[in-house]
């Protein structure tokens, strides 16, 4: 039991500290690496809560795919670190305003005590978590009660995918492409042609 709480404090401490480092690190690549560390620790917290499926999905989707592409892009950018820090004071008031609004909203939520377990369960139809695997539980809810929402989110992702392809696809004209199937169908009959050439005339 004590091992459990020690693990909880380690995970949450590292998650919060690395989240802080995401916004304070000077090098953008370091920021992304700290973001990844934060994701991994958040998934550790999910495991401690008993939500192992969510934890693994968080690692597979965000750390394994999204953050890789993110790191890929940030590594390729030619970033001028001095220029990046120039606008800091200019954006400070706006950022501070957003932060204050967020903190006040969260404070209101906690002070009115509407965030307790009983009131939350009125809104969310969740099955009882006891002995059934939570993969199965998510499946039971997602494909029954939230079926239409699930389909709509799939459509939104499809639209986003089609949109991003349309934006980036451009016809570059003279691109040489390899046609594998036509290469595979080459044999002695269609690759070599036998011609009789008359003397002194050529082809």
């Amino acid at each position, binding site marked *: 039991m004590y091992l459990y709480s020690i693990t909880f404090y380690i995970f949450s401490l590292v998650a919060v500290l690395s989240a802080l480092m995401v916004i304070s690190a000077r090098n953008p690549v370091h920021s992304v690496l700290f973001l*990844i560390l934060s994701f991994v620790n958040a998934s550790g917290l999910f495991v401690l809560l008993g939500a192992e499926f969510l934890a*693994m999905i968080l690692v597979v989707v965000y750390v394994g795919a999204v953050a*890789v592409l993110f790191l890929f892009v940030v590594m*390729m950018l030619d970033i001028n670190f001095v220029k990046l820090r120039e606008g800091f004071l200019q954006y400070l008031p706006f950022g501070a305003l957003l932060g204050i609004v967020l903190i006040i909203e969260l404070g209101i939520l906690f002070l009115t005590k509407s965030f307790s377990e009983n009131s939350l369960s009125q809104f969310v139809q969740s099955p009882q978590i006891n002995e059934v695997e939570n993969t199965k539980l998510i499946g039971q809810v997602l494909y029954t009660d939230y079926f239409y929402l699930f389909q709509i989110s799939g459509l939104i992702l499809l639209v986003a995918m089609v949109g991003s392809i349309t934006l980036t696809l451009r016809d570059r004209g003279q691109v040489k492409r*390899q046609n594998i199937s036509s290469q595979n169908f080459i044999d002695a009959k269609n690759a070599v042609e036998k011609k009789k050439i008359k003397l002194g005339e050529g082809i």
Partner: protein
Amino acid sequence: MNSFSYFHDLIIPGGIIIAQIMAVLMPVLISVAFLVYAERKVLALIQLRRGPNVVGPFGILQSFADALKLLTKENIVPANSNKIVFLLAPIITMVLSLAGWAVIPFAPNWVIADINVGIMYLFAVSSLGVYGIIMAGWASNSQYPFLGALRSAAQMVSYEVSIGFVIITVLLCVGSLNLSKIVEAQETVWFAIPLLPMFVVFFISALAETNRLPFDLPEDESTLVAGFFTEYSSASFVLFFLGEYASMILMSSMTVILFMGGWLPPFDIFPLNAVPGVIWFVIKIIFILFLFIWVRGTFPRYRYDQLMRLGWKIFLPLSLLWVVLTAGFLIVFDMVPNSL
């Protein structure tokens, strides 16, 4: 709760966990050394050479001699590199290739953590492997490693997609994400037989995921010197090397669990089922590892665009189609496992 004693609450559970980890990782690390030896020996036989034959009987201690030589060399960190990330990259590669072993069931109940989402955990750990390579390539601050890292990032993300669909196909037939249950579901027939195309797709994707030939473009020596670990020397190089081979063994054990019935004997008849499960498991892993080495000895390297074409245009549609076919088959013949 109020009577906290270090001994009962911390030392004993912690000690048991550490002992279990040691019991699994020590054999894994030692088998890495013998895998390197076996690879050199098998390649030598394929190419009609002798292979290592000096250190110890039949050269069997060659890997230990190599490791000792590497560890006593100077560890050079390039002056323009990003030092912390540079040194962190091999450690991450090594740790991730060992972390997956926590959920591998070697025999019934022979597993450190029998978690419900075992296969997801393995998939997550193997998808994290790309970070060691990207970080190494970026932190080296050098052209060849960077190119190797970019190739690797694109390659591993592409092949993970088809690996994911192959895993889903298997899960449809099992009805659980627990690795022990996946093995138990193969008691009647190994999944390699009904899902043979997916077995092939998984094996080829595993080659790409572990950066093995014919897909070893991240470390392609004829164009990129040594790819992402060009700048590494001594102990940090050893960590990359160990990590790569340990993740090869991990991927083969994943293949064995998903498709070749884990610890189960091929037929449930007397002389075969008297052999302990862990021995069957190891024999099957050795078979898959032999395939890895065999492929390395016989196939030429893919060109990069061919690699991407294979991943996205052939494996992805094929595995997607197979998911739909398997799901349809299970529903039509009313064979869905643990239906509600």
